[in-house]
């Protein structure tokens, strides 16, 4: 395999940076900043805020599910009228909680909080750029997200309640205020918020792609990019292609709700009245929704896969096993993610033939996923593992990806899915494979890059405690749900006592709820650690993990423009860990082959003469086997 990269002169203005620092006031530095690092931190803090809200909502509905007979009167100060006179949670508010938990976690935490944070923070630092291609667009991206957040947050407090038809907002339920009160103003706000959110994602995504393609430093060919950047690149492309479809779906739903169109409505008799709408199809909405919805799952998980690949390689002191296979499988996953959406719809009444096609395509996606797991495990083999908190969370993410991914083989099989669809088996599946796995990827990333974000170290011991409570807690929450699901329990049920068939598992449901409360509480350890270390943590060395990638060549706290002086050039791939012959167990990407004759592989010696020319605009031809 041979790759040819031609590096053309990169903007002359870069050299100015060593002469002046931007001295903005408080507003331009911390609020309306165009610096990618500040924007990344803004995404992170907003994402963390939403994670607490989203987690809290889930605790409230877990109280209902785990302790169906408990008196929840004590929640009245928080929930007011949503607690009935009997001291019970209002059944409709229960659905609102489930809906908002899903929306918040999927979009606001695991899309904006994860991609937004790490794409913004890492892209320029890891590819060797001063900043994003367009700082202004980047800033807009955050502020659109902020607006979306404000609107969604406001919707939590209105008297008719927030959107409550499930995070998938299937019409007609979401289209008709007669059907449930959450489909009134709450749903309108949901749609407005999502529209703003999509704008934010698109602005960000375009920027990520342009930056990665155009602003790589000298020598940073595509085959020398860290896997995080590859993952973020695929994520951004997938997002760019799929979010507009959700936008279309949301827009058509707005038309149906407010302007009397019938895109998704037909033959409806509700609240004693036959509606005039005819000819629409609720299934059409599901196709549009899942055309985003399924790629969205990969938008959530791909950055986590990238982050953990990087962290596991670094802390195993080994190159990631099968670098190119990792890229290939991510590419394959990204492509396939667009042609599997209808596996969410096997029993919606769509043509069964479509069901067979989508089953075929869905199960194929298990192959690249399996390759990734095997490659992770092989990376651990004969490594020299350092269990930093980031490493622990990365291994945890691989574990969840395995446990949750493997149940996808059941659900992707349309014949088996008939029974399992919309049961707790599905809830267990996706919470492990994309929810918890992506969440762990995010936490791993925070622990790993905290020293570069804030120039200080987080407390490792607290990190270990946080990891073990969360890791065991997550398994205790979601593993029992498999049994509950196999027993047929449907999801989004306020209580199961109306059915003989679902009369049981009080013990497991209580266990799940208790584990959820413990896991949620443990996150405050992390929050404490995070904010305490931000100000009082020990100062970090500039490369605390002995890592190879470019961001660790910046000063302890990189300033505006990231590198004082020239941007470093890159001479090798990012995974030269424990190279035979080398004196240290890592060789940063900025070390030329000419300086490491003792550890060079034969083909790398050939690259030395290309280095010596050292001119920008050189043609680098890299040949590997």
């Amino acid at each position, binding site marked *: 395999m041979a790759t040819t990269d031609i590096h053309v002169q990169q903007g002359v203005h870069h050299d100015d940076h060593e002469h002046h620092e931007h001295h903005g006031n408080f507003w331009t530095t911390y609020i309306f900043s165009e610096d990618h690092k500040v924007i990344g931190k803004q995404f992170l803090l907003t994402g963390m805020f939403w994670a607490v809200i989203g987690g809290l909502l889930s605790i409230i509905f877990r109280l209902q599910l785990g302790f169906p007979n408990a008196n929840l009167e004590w929640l009245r100060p928080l929930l007011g009228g949503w607690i009935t006179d009997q001291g019970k949670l209002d*059944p409709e508010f229960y659905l609102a909680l489930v809906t908002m938990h899903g929306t918040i976690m999927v979009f606001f935490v695991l899309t904006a909080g994860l991609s937004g944070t790490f794409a913004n923070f890492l892209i320029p630092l890891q590819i060797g750029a001063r900043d994003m291609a367009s700082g202004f667009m980047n800033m807009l991206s955050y502020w659109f997200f902020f607006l979306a957040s404000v609107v969604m947050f406001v919707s939590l407090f209105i008297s008719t309640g927030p959107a409550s*038809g*499930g995070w998938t907002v299937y019409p*007609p*339920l979401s289209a008709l205020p007669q059907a*449930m009160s959450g489909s009134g103003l709450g749903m309108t706000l949901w749609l407005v918020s999502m529209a703003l959110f999509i704008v934010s994602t698109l602005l960000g995504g375009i920027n990520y792609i342009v930056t990665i393609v155009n602003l790589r430093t000298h020598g940073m060919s595509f085959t020398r990019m860290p896997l995080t950047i590859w993952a973020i690149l695929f994520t951004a492309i997938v997002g760019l292609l799929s979010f507009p479809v959700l936008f279309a779906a949301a827009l058509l739903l707005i038309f149906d709700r407010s302007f009397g169109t019938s895109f998704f409505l*037909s*033959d409806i008799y*509700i609240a004693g009245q036959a509606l005039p709408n005819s000819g*629409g199809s*609720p299934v059409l909405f599901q196709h549009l929704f899942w055309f985003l919805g399924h790629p969205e799952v990969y938008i959530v998980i791909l950055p986590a896969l990238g982050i953990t690949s990087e962290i596991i390689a670094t802390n195993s*002191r080994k190159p990631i096993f*099968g670098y*190119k296979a990792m890229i290939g499988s991510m590419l394959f996953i990204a492509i396939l993610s667009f042609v599997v959406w209808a596996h969410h719809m096997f*029993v919606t*009444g769509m043509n*069964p033939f479509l069901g*067979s096609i989508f*089953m075929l395509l869905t*199960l194929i996606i*298990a*192959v690249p996923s399996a*390759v990734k797991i095997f490659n992770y*495990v092989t990376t*651990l*083999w*004969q*490594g*020299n*593992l*350092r*269990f930093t908190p980031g490493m622990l969370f990365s*291994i945890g993410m*691989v*574990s969840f990806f*395995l446990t949750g991914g*493997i*149940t996808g*083989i*059941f659900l992707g*099989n*349309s*014949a*088996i899915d*008939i*029974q399992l669809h919309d049961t707790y088996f599905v809830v267990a599946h996706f919470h492990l494979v994309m929810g918890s796995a992506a969440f762990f990827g995010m936490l791993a990333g925070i622990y790993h890059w905290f020293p570069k974000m804030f120039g200080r170290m987080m407390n490792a011991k607290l990190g*270990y405690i946080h990891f*073990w409570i969360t890791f*065991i807690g997550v398994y205790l929450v979601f593993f029992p749900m498999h*049994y509950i699901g*196999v027993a047929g329990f*449907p999801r*989004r049920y*306020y209580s199961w006592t*109306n059915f003989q068939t*679902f009369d049981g598992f009080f013990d497991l449901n209580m266990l799940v709820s208790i584990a959820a409360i413990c896991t949620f509480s443990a996150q405050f350890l992390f929050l404490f650690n995070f904010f305490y270390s931000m100000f009082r943590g*020990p100062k970090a060395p500039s490369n605390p993990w002995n890592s190879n990638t470019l961001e660790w060549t910046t000063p302890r706290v990189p300033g505006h423009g990231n590198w004082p002086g020239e941007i470093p050039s890159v001479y090798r791939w990012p995974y030269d*860990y*424990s190279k035979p012959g080398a004196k240290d*167990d890592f060789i940063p990407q900025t070390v030329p082959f000419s300086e490491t004759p003792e550890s060079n592989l034969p083909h790398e010696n050939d690259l030395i003469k290309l280095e010596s020319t050292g001119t920008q605009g050189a043609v680098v031809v890299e040949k590997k086997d």
Partner: protein
Amino acid sequence: MTNLIIGLGVVLILIILYLIFRVSNLVSLAKTRTTTTDERVDSSNRANGALFLIFTIVALVSFFWYSFAHFDDYNLPVASEHGAWTDTLFWITMGVTVVAFTIISVVMAVFVYKFQHQKGRKARFYPDNHYLELAWTIIPAIVLTVLIFTGLRAWNEITAPASEEAEVIEVIAQQFAWTARYPGNNDNKLGAYNYKLIDAVNEFGLDLTDKNSFDDFKSLELHVPKGKEVLLKIRSKDVLHSLYIPHFRVKMDAVPGMPTQFKFVATKTTEQMRDELNNPNFNYELACAEVCGQAHFSMRMVVVVDEPAAYERWKQGQEAWLKQNPDYLKKVPAALREAAMISAGFEKELVGGVAGN
């Protein structure tokens, strides 16, 4: 008062935790100042490595123990032909995945434990191995192909058109109840309907200009015969619902404006299941599996599986909807009224009287 005490207690505990944290922090600071990066990988590393191994063993043991010891709690008895088939597929997939899952989990835990940091040891530089990668691309691909094709066969069979002799029953979903409509005792055909004709009484939207509708009858329990193919025609009046009969492994959305269907053969009568489970109160149940609003969780319908003869008897005993609601006779075109009364089973003398009007 108690609230105040609890609050103070919590604050006190938090303060103590914070102090412990500060002290341990200072101690570790004093330690790290004198050590190099390499030595900072300390005893916690051993603890974490061991914990991974212990966790994996404990978790796997509890997984297997619970799965076997509580099998009857989570295994739902199956009572339909295709259900037995999909259950087999489920357990085959379970076998394959549990083997893979256990092996990978154990291997990972062992690697994590065994290859934890040791001073002076160097990791093995092992960037790729094409044969290995090819192997674990091809092996899962083959296993999956087998699973896909067994699944496809079942799926095609389950979703194939129902036979001509199938017992056709319509199930109608609305917020928050199910109703069944049977094709009646005379023509055995479901009459036409139109959602615009729905009112408080005519809940089916029955179109009484269609002669097939005269003998249709309504039931709040879903009766089906054992051993005979049943084709459920499913529709919804308002929002999405999903018809879900757990014991039959049946699930299909009810979509307003787009009728759907699902066919199955029940293999055990309600009585047989009661004996088998030793539970005289057992009933098959139909639930809603697609969120549909406030009382989604209470949308229940009892399903009764009868021996074919008993099923026919039950059917004969049902009164046509039109007979229960004679007011609606005036919606029947005059020319058809007599036929309607005969078909709906009105008493002979009445038939002449009304038809003469």
